[in-house]
């Protein structure tokens, strides 16, 4: 299951930062006197230039974080920190599941959040400021003058050790993903391979997010159909679910109800969620049934009209519709229907339904009625 989690700039930034820090570290520790590699002078020149490059990158990254709202990924939380630690100390050995899932606005686990935030607002600024102090304020006839380089170098060296230790731990922890190379591949391609459960959680969170957006739009009661068009496309896009391979599986396991109806109007396939929403005991019970059973008389006419349009090749989205369940109760959902195509022929209709909270639905209906009056 692959999900798109790292945008292109983010990946570019990550690898540039990685290279810069690597270079700064090896030249820095040569300057520190641990070994000789480039030659002292060359090390100093490289370190200074890499520092300027690094600073430039940081400026771009700050801009990116704020314009995309990605900075929210780093809002610290103590929730699940303990679980995350327990996971690394114990759970991981027993094959336990990751205690948190990657969600749209939460692609890092709480430990990652804390540590990356620490890097961003403490370690890196400290390195930058001590580094530039090191570069500029060590000689006289400058604006600010240090009484000596000792304190600056001490801070800078401590930070350097910390960064190196971080990098090592960081690289190791990338192997704790779905598969050992998963995380690194994700940072290269943007698509992270997740296990089904995690992917499902991600998808659901994406959907929830999408629905919340939908709700907000619906509440304005303006231009809904166009919006829903976009919402669907966007959901597919954001979900980053690769339709060609696993879309079906996602749907099968997701909270969205999936259905497939042949030209004659009989269900040939529904997923678990669908049969749950319609309160069938088993999925199979729905097979062969005509779709008319799911609607009231009036609603059926409307549905039939849509059904026929889809058979002609249209894609139809309904806002809120009411369904008649097997046990006689009613529920609300939105529905999307697209032609089911096999061998270049429209052989039926497929689509999915997203359940809507009845209370909300009631409110909606009331609103709509209100408007009609």
């Amino acid at each position, binding site marked *: 299951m692959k999900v798109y989690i790292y945008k*292109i700039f983010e*990946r*570019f930034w990550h*690898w*540039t930062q*990685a*290279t*810069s820090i690597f*270079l700064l570290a090896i030249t820095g520790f040569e*300057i*520190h*006197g641990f070994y*000789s590699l480039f*030659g*002292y*002078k060359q090390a*100093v*020149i*490289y370190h*200074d*230039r*890499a520092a*300027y*490059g690094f600073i430039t990158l940081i400026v771009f990254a700050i801009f990116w974080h704020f314009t995309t709202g990605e900075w929210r990924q780093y809002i610290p939380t103590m929730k699940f920190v303990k679980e995350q630690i327990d996971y*690394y100390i114990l759970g*991981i*050995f*027993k*094959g336990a599941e990751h205690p948190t899932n990657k969600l749209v606005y939460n692609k890092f686990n709480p430990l990652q959040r804390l540590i990356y935030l620490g890097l961003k607002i403490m370690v890196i600024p400290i390195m930058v400021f001590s580094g530039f102090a090191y570069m500029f304020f060590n*000689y*006289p*006839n*400058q604006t600010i*003058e240090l*009484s*000596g*380089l*000792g304190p600056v*170098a*001490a801070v800078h*060296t*401590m930070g*350097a*050790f*910390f960064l*190196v*230790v971080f990098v*090592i*731990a960081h690289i*190791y922890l990338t*192997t704790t993903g779905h598969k050992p190379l998963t995380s690194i591949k994700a*940072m*290269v*391609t*943007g698509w992270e391979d997740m296990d089904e459960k995690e992917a499902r959680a991600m998808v659901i969170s994406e959907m929830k997010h999408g629905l919340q957006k939908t709700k907000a739009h619906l509440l304005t009661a303006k231009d809904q159909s166009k919006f829903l068009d976009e919402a669907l496309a966007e959901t597919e896009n954001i979900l980053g679910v690769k339709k060609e391979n696993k879309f079906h599986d996602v749907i099968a396991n997701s909270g969205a109800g999936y259905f497939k109806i042949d030209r004659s109007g009989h269900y040939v396939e529904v997923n678990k969620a669908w049969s749950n929403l319609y309160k069938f005991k088993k999925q199979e019970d729905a097979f062969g049934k005509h779709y008319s059973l799911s609607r009231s008389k009036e609603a059926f006419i409307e549905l039939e009209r849509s059904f026929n349009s889809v058979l002609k090749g249209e894609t139809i989205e309904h806002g809120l519709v009411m369904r008649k369940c097997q046990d006689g109760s009613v529920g609300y959902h939105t529905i999307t229907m697209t032609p089911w195509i096999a061998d270049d022929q429209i052989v039926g209709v497929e689509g999915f339904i997203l359940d809507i909270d009845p209370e909300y639905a009631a409110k909606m209906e009331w609103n709509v009625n209100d408007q009609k009056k």
Partner: protein
Amino acid sequence: MKKVIQVILVLLLPQIIVFVVVTNSFNTKHAAPSEPIMVNYITKKHQSTMKTVDHSKFEILQQEFKRPQDLTLACLSCHTERHKEVMVNNHWTWDRKEKLHGRDTISIGKKNILNNFCVGVGSNEKMCTKCHAGYGYNDKSFDFTKAENIDCIVCHDQTGLYEKVKGGMPKPGIDLNKIAQSVGKPEKDNCGSCHYLGGGGNNVKHGDLDSKMNDCTREIDVHMAKEGEDMSCTACHTTQNHKITGKLYALSSEDKNRVTCEQCHTDRPHHDKIIDNHSYRVACQTCHIPVYAKATPTKMIWDWSTAGRLDEDSMPITEKDAEGNVSYNGMKGTFVWDDHVIPEYYWFNGLADHFLITDTIKNIPVQMNSLAGSYKDKGIWAESKSVSKIWPVKVHRGKQPYDLVHKTLLLPKLWSEKKGDSAYWMDYNWANSLTAGMKYLHLPYSGKYGFVETEMYWPLNHQVSPADKALQCVDCHTAKPEGRLSKLNDFYLPGRNHFAMIDNIGLGLLIITLLGVAIHGGIRVVAKKKLNHD
């Protein structure tokens, strides 16, 4: 395809960008190492060699001079006011007013200062004034107002024949007439006839002034090398109205009238910002005089306490070291010589103090002249108009007589024409020699003497090496004990200084992390195998 481009964009582009940023020289001026920046200097090629005056055409110079003073008077008959300039110059006065660092202004000069070579001039004048720019300075009664006693030709002779003997008189039999007609601007050997030979022999004192520099290679001195600019002393020690620039911190103590590299090379001559910045705190000499005494050995140690060994004929014994340098002389004691010497390094801001014969010894070794400066002496903390810079210094170490009771240095009377006059070099009796020396100065002496260790500091300026021989970064930026600055420890120097605690904690953390990763990873691998098994 799109995917491949993305991967390249994401993985390769960063490496390329960082590589370009790091290897490109857009933020450092590019070095053209062989060509240092130069101002205020006309190269030899463009100098005019035309003589404007031919002194052999002057009738007054065509006489047989009976006395050297007659020659001086002949000079002054045309150069009517020049004697006034010379008579305030310390080549004549051997004395000047200087403010000692942290102390009062006093009269100080060759006349009254002590060193740790031949100790002092007092009572030995006749011997020492061989290098006085005058005639007849035999004792302290010399008349410094008598212009005819000025020795013009020691500086202006161009025959190379001139030589001075005791009391500063010309060597008997010298052709003063020929010399008088040859006069011109001082050349290397005019200055060198005294300055090369300080301390009683070639290159003994300075270590960076050697008669071989009259005709030397670039390896020895890039400025004075025959094959290069072949610069004379006065090219740097510019002189007007007999005011000679430059001074020696064996005698001076104020930050004035200095000759600097910057006067021709500017303070940013390298085409390289990082190196140029070093000149804020590092004297040019530090990197560019990596070793001194390159052509002839110089004296590093002079121990008077062993002097006095005589042979059966009561003549002073001499011994030589493996290189043929005199390592013992019964008249003077034990010597240690060295060549291609690595300088010692000190902070120096142009101010100095001197140990006067009236000063009480508080520290041993006694510092004959102490160079002021420290790391902290810069910017808002600076105590002179120039910040302290790291300087290469020749340190001459000695052991010389002092008063066991008064704790002062003592001046021996060394020289006399005859025996029985208390001169050490005649009678080899310290007690008499020291009594006579101190009596000559009217200074107290308890009669009890010993020998005390002394140090004298000679900031190096000459024998600049070719650029490719200059010190490299790691000569100083290293923690190795042989690092050039390993003893200059009052500041944090990158690459040399470490905070042991930070390093230990840092490396400890690193090891713990690596171990942690290995252990954690190991357990994971094992655990996974087991899980798969079950």
